[in-house]
């Protein structure tokens, strides 16, 4: 393949990575922004989304599209409910102490991972894409589903942005993010806001997991990579900044896609990690984060 088309293909692959990453990272960033909780178990919510997509797809009869649409709704809701329970049972009891919650979410990570291993097993299972059509470009054919993933992530992120900026619930979350004590003295039930935020963050990760599973297969260890990449994106973009998260996801996704194709995936990860180190040294609040 000539250089031009090859680059195009690499960029398209990168865009798919960026889209899924942006969804997962937006959830992580939201939870950190509003609750000041670094959720180490975030990747497990992504993994659970993928596994539940497989479960739903194998249970729901009919064409793959039906099972897939069902999974798009059911998996994030179930994972969100699990996260809400984890919030009430664990994080709230720790009074959202920043250090204690890191340790607690590490524990949560292992609990979810081992429970999945016990119930689902070690195998990777594929889930059929909801539709099969390919887009025929002059140089190569490309999966229509992958483009759908990019589109779907874009729509969800736009909806998230509108939710945060234009709805009463979003306003309440932003006020709580700025000053939870003052928020309480204006009638905001901070416990409820935290529970909802943790559920929403987990739901976004689960949604990313559902979207990726027709491309990647569902397996109980798949949460590691997205956790690392989400942290990279969130640190570069600035913790708690949705805009920064999106831009950083694009940068990391596109560079990961192209470097992986032209060189090796390992080099891509090395470069991304170096980038994080440089951001941490020269601009610790992230490229778009407000100075703490």
């Amino acid at each position, binding site marked *: 393949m000539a250089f031009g088309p090859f680059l195009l293909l690499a960029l398209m692959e990168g865009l798919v990575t960026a889209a899924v990453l942006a969804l997962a990272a937006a959830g992580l960033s939201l939870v950190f922004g509003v609750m000041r909780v670094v959720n180490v178990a975030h990747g497990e919510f992504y993994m659970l989304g993928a596994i539940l997509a497989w479960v739903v797809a194998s249970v729901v009869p009919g064409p793959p599209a039906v099972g897939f649409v069902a999974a798009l709704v059911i998996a994030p809701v179930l994972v969100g409910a699990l996260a809400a329970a984890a919030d009430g049972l664990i994080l709230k009891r720790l009074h959202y102490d920043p250090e204690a919650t890191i340790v607690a979410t590490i524990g949560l990570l292992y609990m979810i991972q081992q429970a999945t291993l016990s119930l689902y097993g070690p195998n990777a299972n594929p889930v059929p894409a909801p539709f099969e059509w390919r887009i025929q470009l002059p140089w190569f054919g490309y999966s229509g589903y992958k483009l759908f993933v990019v589109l779907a992530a874009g729509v969800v992120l736009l909806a998230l942005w509108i939710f945060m900026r234009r709805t009463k619930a979003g*306003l309440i979350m*932003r*006020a709580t993010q700025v*000053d939870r004590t003052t928020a*309480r003295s*204006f*009638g*905001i039930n901070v416990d409820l806001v935290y529970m909802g935020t943790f559920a929403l963050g987990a739901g976004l990760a689960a949604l990313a997991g559902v979207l990726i599973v027709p491309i990647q297969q569902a397996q109980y260890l798949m949460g590691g990579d997205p956790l690392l990449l989400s942290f990279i994106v969130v640190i570069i973009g600035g913790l708690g900044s949705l805009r920064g998260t999106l831009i950083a996801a694009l940068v990391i996704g596109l560079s990961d896609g192209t470097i992986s194709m032209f060189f090796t995936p390992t080099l891509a990860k090395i470069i991304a990690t170096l980038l994080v180190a440089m951001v941490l040294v020269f601009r610790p609040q992230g490229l778009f984060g407000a100075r703490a």
Partner: protein
Amino acid sequence: MALEVVSLSSGYGPITVLHGVSFRAEPGRVSCIMGRNGAGKSTLLKCLMGLVPARSGTITLNGVALHGLPAHEVPRRGIAYVPQGRRLFGPLTVAENLAIGGLVTGNRPETLHRVLTLFPRLRERLTQTAATLSGGEQQMLAIARALCLDPRVLLLDEPTEGLQPSMIALIQEAIVVLKARGVAVVLVEQRVDAVLKLADRVAFMVSGRIVEDRDVSGLRADADAFRTYVGV
């Protein structure tokens, strides 16, 4: 609509700050609390808002207990709070800060209109973020945000601290208007002139105790009280 505090004790962790404070605020009256830095004035207001738990004693509004309520229930009873140092939601716009103030009363347009009539300057700044306002405008916003709750009781913690005289006058005028509307105003204030101008009653606080609580009329002639308790 009297707010009544009886033998209230409170503090932070092992430290007791308030030792059996009793205090009253009545509708249409301005009740001032004076005292040196660290006397416990802000702690008293935080305790009234449920932000610092009461250890003993009672807080009632018209006979209904407020102590023990979760903090987010207190504003639902009609109590609004202007904290010391304003504590605005800086990255949020002026309109959004006001919307947070009006959450518990459903953000009625007529309430917002009334608040913006009292502080017309804020109307011109609705889409600006709170952090970009001047100090005086920020204080106006802090009061306006509390008024969006259409409160029966308004707690103000040093609302004119660090402001220019012209701003202080504007804020004092607003307090006079609120008093005339029948709001029970609790004002923590360090300036003697402001207290003499606005207050109906003055309570002096020393080390977490109310040591004197009297009508302002008797105080006008008695500069000693201020000298003793506030050090001016």
